């Protein structure tokens, strides 16, 4: 299927998307939230309670001079390295766990433990043992995301259709082809699910590690705002970071997941 779009179709595509964004009922939610927020600031008597205008000021401060983007870059480097490691290790472990029952039982308790430990513990332990620097966040992120990846990959391996495998051995299909055409497509949706869940965990742990033991990055900036008692500062940085994460999740990860899912019958998902 060619992705080339003619000029005329391109224009109407843009018009359609614009129309869907502007004439969307979801703006109602945003407007209501801002109105309620403004009313709350009048009612609540706490000094530090942020006003919409105050948050806008903080947003402007954060974006000025590329401050946000340079810190975002630092955070993203840590997240990429850490999550890449976690994805690799998690996939290997998941493959092992899915194929041999021995490995499944071997890793089981650690996976369960790893899934339940709060990101805070990973972050603090990594900083205490590895100090300040790149090693701490990368290790914490890798260890925290590993269990999620492993669990999903394991499910993927277990779901490989045995009948297809038997058919391949009957028709004497060579191993490379077997892997490329049967195993990899079966695994890809699960790996994508692992990437999506693991990525969420990864950036949360990344920010936590930065809060306690880094001098750059989103987490550090939040710590700084906390230190100067600026609630609107934290809200502003959180909003900016949240938007970036949502863009990555909805703009990159979910479309990717749907692409790899397309051979599968539709499944209802809750969360």
């Amino acid at each position, binding site marked *: 299927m060619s992705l080339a779009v003619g000029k005329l179709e391109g224009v109407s595509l843009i018009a359609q998307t614009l129309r869907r964004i502007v004439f969307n*009922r*979801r703006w*109602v*939610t*945003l407007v*209501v*939230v801002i109105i309620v927020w403004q009313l709350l600031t009048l009612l609540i008597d*706490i000094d*530090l*309670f942020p006003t919409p205008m105050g948050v806008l000021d903080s947003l402007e401060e954060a974006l000025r001079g590329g401050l946000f983007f340079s810190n975002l870059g630092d955070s993203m480097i840590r997240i990429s390295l850490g999550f890449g490691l976690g994805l690799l290790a998690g996939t290997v472990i998941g493959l092992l766990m899915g194929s041999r029952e*021995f*490995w499944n*039982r*071997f*890793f*089981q*308790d*650690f996976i369960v433990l790893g*899934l*339940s*430990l*709060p*990101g*805070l*513990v990973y972050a*603090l*332990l990594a*900083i*205490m*043992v590895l100090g300040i620097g790149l090693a701490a966040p990368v290790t914490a992120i890798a260890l925290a995301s590993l269990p*999620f990846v492993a*669990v*999903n990959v394991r*499910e993927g391996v277990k779901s490989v259709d045995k009948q297809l495998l038997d058919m391949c051995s009957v028709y004497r299909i060579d191993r490379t082809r077997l892997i490329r055409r049967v195993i990899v497509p079966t695994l890809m949706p699960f790996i994508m*699910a692992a990437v999506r*869940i693991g990525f969420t965990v990864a*950036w*949360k742990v990344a*920010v*936590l590690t930065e*809060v*306690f033991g880094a001098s750059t990055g989103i*987490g550090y900036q*939040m710590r700084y*705002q*906390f230190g100067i*008692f600026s*609630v609107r500062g*934290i*809200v502003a940085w*959180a909003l900016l970071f*949240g938007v970036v*994460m*949502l863009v990555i*999740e909805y703009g990159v990860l979910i479309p990717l997941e749907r692409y790899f899912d397309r051979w599968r019958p539709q499944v209802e998902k*809750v*969360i």
Partner: protein
Amino acid sequence: MESRLGRWLAGFFWHPRWIAFAVLLTIWQITAVVRNTRVVPTPGRVWVEFWQILSTFSFVDDLWASMIRIVAGFAAAMLIGTIAGVLMGSRRAWDEFLRDLVVFGLALPGLVYALIAVMLFGQALWAPVLAIMLTSYPFVAVNVREGVKALDKNLLDMAKIYRINRWDLVRRIVIPSLLPFIFAGIRLGFSISWKVNTLVEVFGSTNGVGWQIRASFDAYSVHGMLAWTFIFGGAMLFIEYYILSPAERYFGRWRPKIDQVV
């Protein structure tokens, strides 16, 4: 061995997990000795610390303080989440209106809520309650919404035809249908609650498990932190695996099996 207990014992002890455990302990011990044991405590040290904390019973104070905050915050989250979920499940307008709020709630890390709550409310109970409520309610809401959408329309129509009164309708049809979803929400929400509460305590409290963990961090006491994590984590996991999950399965036993990953 023929008895069930015998078989369970055999299954528990003749298990690769002990090999994994042994490997872990070995790596840990070697790392501790090779690196400075000030930085990496030996497993033995952590074990000793663990029992020291448990033996003085003073840990109960901190555990209790944390539990109060968790329960209060979680109750608030359940309330808001259930209301939101019911609204979202029954009327499309509410679904569209609230959906972005729920998605946004799911996206923001608990850290942000914790920091803001501590700055606004200091050490008052409102800090953890608010932070927990805002972080957990999306999980409850999403599950309750699925539960409402899954209500069997045939049963509801039948109830209308037989003119069953509202109270009976709610008691015998709506609530049993919703319970498994509510419990799924409880399980997820509780899991989030205690993690966020620990964060709130780390930043702004003078008692509780989170504060103990913070104190250990400030004192570079890896063994202290590990010990507290195991004690608290152990208690929470116990609740999750031996109380909440069985409850969820019990109330869900009329349902056809659904595969869940995480």
